[in-house]
């Protein structure tokens, strides 16, 4: 990388859950416009990293900056105001609210009505099926549709950085491909994407860079292409293909 200003930077971040240390000395950086994936097995600390970036988990040691300012002392709402958005694990759309209301919740902190409507139109472009079911209750949609809705909801805050927690979980393989295609499309618009994924193959297929987490520590990092051909990676996560 070049002289670009990092969008998100984590420096020696350590987090605890009571006395248990979950993340240890994690260094990560995301540049504007990049797509970075975070890989690792179960209980490696992937979800916790995401929650730490969002502010749901507090940083015990180390620091984090977002868009040039110190972020680990901000509340979740403040971080969202400054341009973060999240597509949570298992989608977690609001089941008893309509599709439209779910999208509106994504834009909760915004007050520029006209721009919000424009963003909603863009979401309908990306996900025509969402646009067709505006008045349907979120809980009645299929897993794949919910994933699209969750992504649309995240886009509604016009974020600079979208955090995605295991988007492929529970989806049919065909859908997974589609979803990641759309993620790439969104990324090409200039929105940085930080994807936490178990499915290393698919994630590395479209990401720019990747980090590999194991028991709370970063053990590998680099360009996505390099990681795809990395021997250790192949054995551990990709299978001998």
């Amino acid at each position, binding site marked *: 990388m070049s002289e670009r200003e990092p969008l998100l930077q984590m420096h020696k971040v350590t987090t605890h859950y009571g006395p248990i240390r979950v993340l240890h000395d994690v260094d990560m950086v995301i540049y504007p416009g990049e797509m970075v994936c975070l890989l690792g097995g179960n209980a490696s600390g992937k979800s916790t990293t995401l929650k730490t970036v*969002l502010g*749901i988990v507090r940083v015990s040691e180390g620091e984090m900056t977002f868009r040039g300012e110190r972020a680990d002392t901000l509340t*979740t*709402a403040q971080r*969202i*105001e400054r341009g973060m958005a*999240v597509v*949570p694990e298992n989608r*977690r*759309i*609001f*089941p*008893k*609210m309509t599709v439209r*209301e779910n999208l*509106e*919740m*994504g834009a*909760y*902190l915004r007050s520029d009505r006209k721009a919000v409507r424009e963003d909603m139109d863009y979401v309908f472009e990306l996900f025509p099926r969402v646009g067709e079911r505006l008045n349907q209750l979120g809980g009645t949609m299929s897993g794949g549709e919910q994933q699209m809705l969750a992504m649309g*909801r995240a886009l509604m*805050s016009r974020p600079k950085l979208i955090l995605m927690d295991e988007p492929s979980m529970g989806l049919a393989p065909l859908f997974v491909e589609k979803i990641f295609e759309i993620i790439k499309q969104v990324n090409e618009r200039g929105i940085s994407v930080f994807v936490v994924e178990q499915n290393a193959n698919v994630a590395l297929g479209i990401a720019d860079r990747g980090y590999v987490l194991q028991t709370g520590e970063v053990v590998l990092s680099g360009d996505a292409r390099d990681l795809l051909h990395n021997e250790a990676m192949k054995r551990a996560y990709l299978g001998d293909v």
Partner: protein
Amino acid sequence: MPWGWIIGLGLVALVIFRIYYVVHVLKARDLAFFVGAMLQSLQLGSLYALIALGYTMVYGIIRLINFAHGDVFMVGAFLAYFLFSRSPYALPWALIWAALSAWGVMFVLNLWRGSFRDPIVIGGGVVAMAGLTYALSATTVNWLLAMLLSMLITGVLGVVIDRVAYRPLRGAPRISLLITAIAMSFFLENTGLLVFTRNQTPFRPPTEWTQYLQFPVFGSTVYTTRLIFLIPLATALLVVALTLFVTRTRLGKAMRASAQDPETAQMMGVNVDRVIATTFLLGSMLAAAGGVLWGLNFGSLNQPAVMGILPGIKAFAAAVIGGIGSLPGAVIGGVLLGFLENFVTALFPRTQHFAGLTEYKDTFAFILLILVLLLRPSGIVGEDLSEKV
């Protein structure tokens, strides 16, 4: 699901047969009596609905049975009583009442503006303070203004209770929260005894709405008051206002989102603590309105340690029966319970051979509650919020 309709229609048919039996066979009552009972049931049901809404909203969002809600209802009634019966007040007291009410005004404006430092909020508070100080020291407050002011002050009380007793226990085991709510309830009851009165209190503000009314029906006359218009109307207005707030406004949607998934709502930037405080504000305001209308309906208030207990528990039962967590459920449950208590006892009046059901009517709510909890915990509307294994 056809079962619900079958049972419902069956019950209606049974009721019709029973009325026929009582009027024409037993000749114990006339049809006008039943019309009157129906109107009474609607009134009582509306009152239960107003209280039930507060229970259902709070349970929906933090899964707490707010034991203290019935006592908040009591406080609302008594505050209104003191406002209309002792005004005009001497200046120090007028200032205190005005200050409390102005605080409530600021909370309500804060719902709209979002910050206590907003000029509209502060300005509204100052204007309210000045205006109310004048009104309370120079004039006798009428029952409607008393009700509005009581709603404002009681709303703030609800927020304070949450802030002081429930917020510190977020994330604590449910039993602790429930015990704290019980303690709050006990505290309010005994403080009410201390601060308000120890006796049963007459509640008769001068108003047209309590005037008697009679109209002919089916050959005889129904005797009632004009409250048959006021109470259901006022309830409907408040319910509509609440529903609009919850479905159309940003904060209302945040409330619904937080009730469904507080963590994700937080991830959208919602300040869940503020949403919870709003829930308590609105629920307590409705309870206060219910308290005032209750006083008008019955003409007196029971002493503070007793007044809120039974109505509170019954309203909670109504919320569960209708479907806890659901606003329409609370209204349906409340009205249903009102009919159960009033109308069913009317169906089985006291005769020579039968003592009547009146002395058992307070137990109906509990029995129905236990049955619903055991057989269909999701209630009539059917949103099951019980713990899923």
